[in-house]
């Protein structure tokens, strides 16, 4: 057999059929479900009299429209509650395991999959959510799908899929203090553009990736879709196995040893060919921040905002002008010192324990500035409880931040956690689109450390000044 990349190995192992001119029929090992993109799929099953083919390979949670504060009857959002009730009813009717509002295992779907050991190397993982690429950090082939496809997978455990091309992102060098995997992925998206990965499966390789822990790797893979790639993968290694060992749904005892032996084969062959390849040096990276209205509009924190009059970036000039007008930021100078109203720490990009620990370590003994409010939303209830066991909640609260229940929250602002029109938010989430975090809200994406330092100063701040 000719040399194959990691992606090809996992893809080939799951193709059930492939007719000439048609997409492949791909078997799905793990189907994750959430409140927002599943109701119409279950309705479709009901209409056609179908069952969920493999409830044992299907896991549901509530994350997108869930409140992060205790809900009083007067304050509840009836539509959101009806949607959550519908998910509960659907899961009961079709026999799907659900981590509902009262579950300690509930959380953002891309946080709980890995945390419970459901996400494993070599699996195909899908979810009606574009950030499913997160699970690629384990060497899984994971991608977001639409609701029609959710229905297909529920009914058949299969998905029609065209094989993407291969794109290797090789990252050598070691990141400087104050620079994180969030900065790396923002720099990559800025370099290749928000559609630079369209039609490709990304594979991240190199010493900088190997040096990352699993949570950092998840941040990188999470934002593959922000470069247009539905999936981004990292070959599993000892770091991966160590993370998975002992987790609830990870194999145990002899099955564990056999699994690890099999997982070790999930690496790209040395001679594997890629349709596209780029090299990246992590040692030169600075903390990154976005200035515009998509994640590709990112710059090193000390660099000037691009000027549409001398636009040397990948960003189309009209889009750049529109973004600067929406953001009301000045071209030609850095964002350092720019005013802020809100700080959001959370999301499937940066709402894991290590993200909270980093921010808390910085905030310990410090206060956030008077001019802003800060929301800390753990990625899952398990993250929340562990953070509380470590006293991180006290640090955040004493610093002046709000400590909330797990959920997607202000990342997409459909649960009531939102930024007011015209306000500026520095956010550890993954999207800074117009209105994403509230109608008229203006978002700056950054790492947890940059967000924490900026919270203390009250303006956009280079965390390296503190190191």
């Amino acid at each position: 057999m000719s040399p194959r990349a990691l992606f090809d190995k996992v893809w080939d192992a799951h193709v059930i059929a492939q007719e000439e001119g048609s997409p492949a029929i791909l078997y799905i090992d793990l189907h994750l479900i959430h409140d927002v993109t599943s109701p119409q799929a279950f309705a479709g099953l009901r209409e056609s009299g179908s069952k969920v083919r493999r409830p044992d390979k299907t896991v549901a949670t509530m994350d997108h429209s869930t409140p992060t504060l205790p809900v009083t009857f007067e304050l509840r959002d009836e539509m959101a509650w009806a949607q959550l009730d519908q998910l509960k009813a659907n899961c009961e009717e079709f026999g799907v395991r659900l981590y509902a509002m009262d579950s300690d295992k509930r959380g953002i779907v891309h946080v709980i999959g890995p945390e419970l050991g459901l996400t494993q190397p070599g699996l195909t993982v899908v979810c009606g959510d574009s950030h499913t690429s997160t699970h690629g950090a384990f060497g899984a082939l994971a991608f977001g799908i639409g609701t029609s496809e959710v229905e297909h997978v529920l009914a058949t455990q299969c998905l029609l899929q065209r094989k993407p091309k291969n794109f290797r992102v090789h990252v050598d060098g070691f990141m400087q203090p104050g620079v994180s995997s969030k900065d790396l992925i923002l720099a990559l998206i800025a370099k290749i553009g928000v559609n630079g990965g369209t039609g490709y499966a990304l594979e991240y390789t190199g010493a900088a990736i190997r040096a990352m822990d699993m949570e950092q790797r998840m941040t990188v893979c999470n934002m593959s879709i922000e470069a247009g790639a539905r999936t981004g993968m990292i070959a599993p290694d000892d770091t991966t196995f160590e993370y998975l060992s002992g987790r609830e749904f990870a194999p145990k005892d002899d099955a564990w040893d056999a699994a690890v032996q099999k997982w070790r084969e999930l690496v790209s062959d040395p001679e594997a060919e890629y349709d596209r390849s780029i090299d990246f040096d992590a040692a030169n990276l600075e903390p990154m921040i976005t200035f515009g209205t998509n994640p590709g509009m990112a710059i090193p924190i000390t660099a000037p905002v691009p000027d549409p009059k001398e636009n040397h970036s990948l960003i189309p000039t009209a889009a750049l002008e529109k973004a600067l007008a929406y953001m009301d930021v000045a071209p030609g100078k850095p964002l350092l010192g720019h005013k802020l109203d809100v700080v959001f720490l959370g999301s499937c990009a940066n709402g894991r324990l290590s993200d909270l620990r980093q921010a808390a370590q910085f905030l310990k003994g410090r206060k956030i500035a008077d001019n802003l409010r800060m929301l800390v939303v753990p990625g899952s209830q398990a993250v929340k409880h562990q953070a509380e066991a470590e006293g991180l909640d006290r640090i955040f609260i004493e610093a002046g931040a709000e400590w909330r229940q797990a959920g997607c929250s202000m990342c997409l602002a459909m649960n009531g956690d939102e930024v007011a029109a015209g306000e500026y938010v520095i956010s550890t989430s993954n999207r800074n689109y117009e209105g994403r975090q509230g109608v008229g809200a203006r978002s700056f994406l950054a790492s947890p450390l940059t967000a924490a330092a900026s919270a203390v100063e009250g303006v956009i701040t280079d965390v390296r000044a503190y190191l």
Partner: protein
Amino acid sequence: MKFERIKSSAVLLPLDDVDTDQIIPARYLKTIKKDGLGKHLFADWRYSSEGDEHGDFALNQPSSKGASILIMGVNFGCGSSREHAAWALVDYGFRAVIAKSFADIFRTNALKNGLLPIAIDAETHAELVAMVAANPEAQLSVDLDDQQLVLPNGTTLTFPLDPFSKRILIEGANELDYILSFEDAISAYESEHD
């Protein structure tokens, strides 16, 4: 839903990298239905905070009423996987989107809802934009059988579409039935791997 031949004027919104949060903001995703989303299409660009239509927005132009073709720029539909974006476009009345390129998930979602994504090269795109800008009533036509797009000036071009998607659109067929026709292979795979 079978795809019929289209002859229509077009709505011109040739912006690049328009994401699905713009097509339909997240606050409208609390529905458990597919229909009725057309009124929220491009909501934050289309309406003021009081709910009044912005007169200068493309969808609110008199010439846009009844148009079933939308012209966008590069990378249309990037971002979230929400199929609500395709549902909203279809519910509004669009049957085809012409763009320089499409995001992968959006393209898949569109095809599953009878919405035809037509990718054209930058040069033709610029000509088309100029023609429609000069005459918003200008008629375009789309023939799926021949994979042909006829521009207002009579220029005819062939657009790419894979044979599988074309068949699904023309026959109004259900992809689920296609997958189900491989039941034996699925069962065999499961008994080998479980």
